[in-house]
């Protein structure tokens, strides 16, 4: 790739402006994307990345500026028009329809012969073909909602790829994918690149930026900070551009000391399981200790957390908390018993979009204290402000509806809500999904600090580095079964990979 990409830009965005009440989301942003390049669009949570691509893809209307496609001005007013122009998008949140089948999700608005009729035989063949390009094999007649978030993400990507695509926009497509799937996706991206498709790639994983992208543009607070070839921007420069400051030595801090299992047992599961969902497993959580939960996509990580929390019912085994065995686990009882759970799918299970940040944050405290004893407004505001500061949530104030926050900031609210209830046991499922580099390190640090204060923690994550960094012990999942545990002292990336691959079944 030559540093100065010559020729006509496939997409040129000039002086794009977008204002939301109280926020200048984009301020005269210019962006040029060339055919056959992977253009990484980077920036902190709330920098304006999603807003920019939503304007390009017709999901939002711009307040100013112009867009040129192959040199001709275009006025994209809906995603349908964008699709017609060959601009395909995978939006940040999985924006598909869980109640419809995989086939329907892959072909909605795309197939249709004469008189608007659909041939399901053709649609299924098309769906099958799209998925096989990504190497995904699933039953395409089942409803999408019956698959994991990661699988849904793959389906969304498969949907965006078709023959007419000239511009492909991927907003954090790898946030919930594991290494193998990311590799498969990158293979496809390279193919598409070779075909001359212009690709915009948004991510918070800097490794992936250097692996796949040709050029980088960085946004900060709605302003374009800079654009340049990936090969000429170092990691440090990049982080400095994104954060507007250097990232401190946080990264090394959290791997510092690991605990040995000495705290009091606060949660024990013996033979806990559920038919067709999870094979029976044993697990102990101790005060002051973080247990990681590693495993590939679909290995049952999320299910373990949900089973412990009572979000799904077990049909075998016993779960005991400090107070004794739990008979009928339910989320409410778990919360009252001092548990908190951050789900991975915040859109469906985590947050209530219409409610403000403050209301979302105090929700679980409210549930714990009983609905009748209302928390005084002043206290609510104090707690919300504290959390906004602690987690650096980008918002003008605590009253903004959560649906209007950027994706990463929504994830922070999920965490804030769990933390606000001052739990003694915390279950985190993909806690840093979609969170920027600066906040990522801070959140892991926060997790460690909470442990030091005596919190028992379970961290399920598809990112091995995160599991390694955050946990004292690691339980490894494979095919809906807990296949073993890696004791503190032996928690390394390699040990986890070896156990997942099945080469080492003994205790680490």
């Amino acid at each position, binding site marked *: 790739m030559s540093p100065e990409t010559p020729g006509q830009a496939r997409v040129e965005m000039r002086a794009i402006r977008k204002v939301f009440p109280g926020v200048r989301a984009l301020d005269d942003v210019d962006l040029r994307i060339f055919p056959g390049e992977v253009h990484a669009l980077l920036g902190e949570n709330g920098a304006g990345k999603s807003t920019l691509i939503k304007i390009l893809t017709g*999901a939002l209307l711009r307040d100013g500026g112009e867009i040129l496609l192959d040199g001709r001005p275009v006025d994209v007013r*809906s*995603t*349908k028009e964008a*699709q017609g122009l060959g601009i395909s*998008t995978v*939006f940040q949140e999985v*924006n*598909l*329809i*869980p*109640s*419809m*089948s995989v086939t*329907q*999700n892959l072909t*909605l*608005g*795309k*197939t*249709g012969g004469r*008189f*608007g*009729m*659909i041939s*399901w035989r053709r649609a299924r063949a098309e769906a099958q073909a799209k998925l096989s390009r990504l190497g995904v094999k699933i039953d395409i*007649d*089942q*409803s999408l*909602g*019956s698959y994991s978030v990661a699988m849904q993400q793959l389906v969304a990507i498969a*949907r965006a790829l078709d023959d007419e695509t000239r511009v492909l926009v991927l907003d954090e497509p790898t946030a919930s994918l594991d290494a193998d799937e990311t590799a498969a996706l990158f293979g496809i991206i390279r193919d598409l690149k070779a075909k001359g498709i212009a690709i915009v790639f948004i991510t918070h994983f800097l490794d992936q930026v250097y692996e796949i992208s040709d050029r980088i543009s960085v946004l900060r607070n709605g302003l374009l900070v800079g654009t340049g070839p990936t090969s000429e921007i170092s990691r440090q420069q990049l982080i400095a551009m994104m954060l507007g400051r250097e990232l401190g030595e946080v990264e090394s801090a959290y791997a510092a000391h690991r605990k040995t299992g000495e705290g009091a047992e606060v949660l024990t599961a013996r033979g806990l399981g559920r038919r067709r969902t999870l094979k029976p497993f044993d697990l102990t959580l101790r005060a002051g200790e973080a247990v990681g939960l590693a495993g590939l996509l679909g290995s049952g990580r999320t299910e373990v957390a949900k089973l412990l929390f009572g979000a799904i019912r077990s049909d075998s085994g016993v779960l005991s908390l400090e107070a004794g065995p739990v008979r009928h686990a339910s989320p409410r009882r778990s919360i009252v018993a001092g548990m908190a759970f951050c789900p991975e799918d915040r859109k*469906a299970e985590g947050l209530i979009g219409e409610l403000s940040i403050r209301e979302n944050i105090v929700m679980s405290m409210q549930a714990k204290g009983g609905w009748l004893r209302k928390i005084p407004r002043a206290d609510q505001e104090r707690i919300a402000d504290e959390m906004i500061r602690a987690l650096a949530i980008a918002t003008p104030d605590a009253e903004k509806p959560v649906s209007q926050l950027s994706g990463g900031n929504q994830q922070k609210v999920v965490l804030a809500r769990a933390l606000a209830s001052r739990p003694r046991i915390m279950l985190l499922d993909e806690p840093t999904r979609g969170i920027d580099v600066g906040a990522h390190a801070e959140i892991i640090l926060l997790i460690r600090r909470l442990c030091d204060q005596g919190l028992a923690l379970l961290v399920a994550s598809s990112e091995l580095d995160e599991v390694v960094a955050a946990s004292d012990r690691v339980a490894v999942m494979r095919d809906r079964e807990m296949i073993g545990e890696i004791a503190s002292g032996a928690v390394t990336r390699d040990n986890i990979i070896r156990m997942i691959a099945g080469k080492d079944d003994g205790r680490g």
Partner: protein
Amino acid sequence: MNRKYIPLATTIAVFLALFLIGGAMYRNFLSTLVLGNILADNSFIIIAAIGATFVILSGGIDLSIGSMIGFVGVSMAVLDRMGWHPLASAALMLCFGILFGAAQGWIIDFCAIQPFIVTLAGLFLLRGACFMVTVDSVPIRHDFVQFYASLKVHLPGRGVLRSSALVMLASLAVAVVIAHFTRFGSNVYAVGGDRESARLMGVDIRRTTVSVYALGGFYSALAGVVYALYTSSGYPLAGSTLELSAIAAVVLGGTLLSGGVGMVVGTLFGGMILGLISTLIIFNGSLNSAWILISSGVLLFAFIVLHRFLVSSIGLRETQ
């Protein structure tokens, strides 16, 4: 079996069970005669419920159905008195149904008002219009009504399919094609499943919303036509609270009120279950009609509890 068929299978099982219970309790119950009568007597509810299925699948609700049936009836009766052929007045009323529905859909989408409110206004508006047209029961005397009543297809056994049942089955067939084999049908499921996602996937929300209420309007007008021809009269109070029976039929048919999940065929069985209950109670003879409502209510409740249970136990996803 695909999980999405489980609610439908449950509905059919409930229908068969009720039918067999009837057969065990009364002689002559298990016959095509009873079946044919249930189909004919409930055809207008089922037709209206088919339209309501689309509206509910799209995440909306249509409360104007019953008033539409009444309005179509009195209009046809009055037009009959003015010398119109029933088929001509039926065609006019179907167009009216489409336009009225489309207008409701447009208001719902353009002004972003809840469908409940808009169609509630539609309910009052049309009922008022009924009384504007006439305050009395007006007979439809045209010869066509006799001809319509005499049309029938013989079933094996002593049963017959009357013209109302035939119209209903034909409109069901059309509805199944629309729901499952057209882009529009997919769009309806998509909008009901997740509006915002559907928009981002390129579904034209306004067009879908307007069309779905237009289709609902068409089906309720058709139900009105069938009802008027079946009773050969128009009466301004006809069809009161029928929208609720239609919604009950949709729910018994396994469609979720939250939208996005369900099947049109289920509505046929949902409507037939309601019909079966009243037939069973009429067969009994000693129970009065209050029991029809009471047992419908109990069954509706039981079914919804069962459905909830199925949803949670097999992980059949609702629309969230």
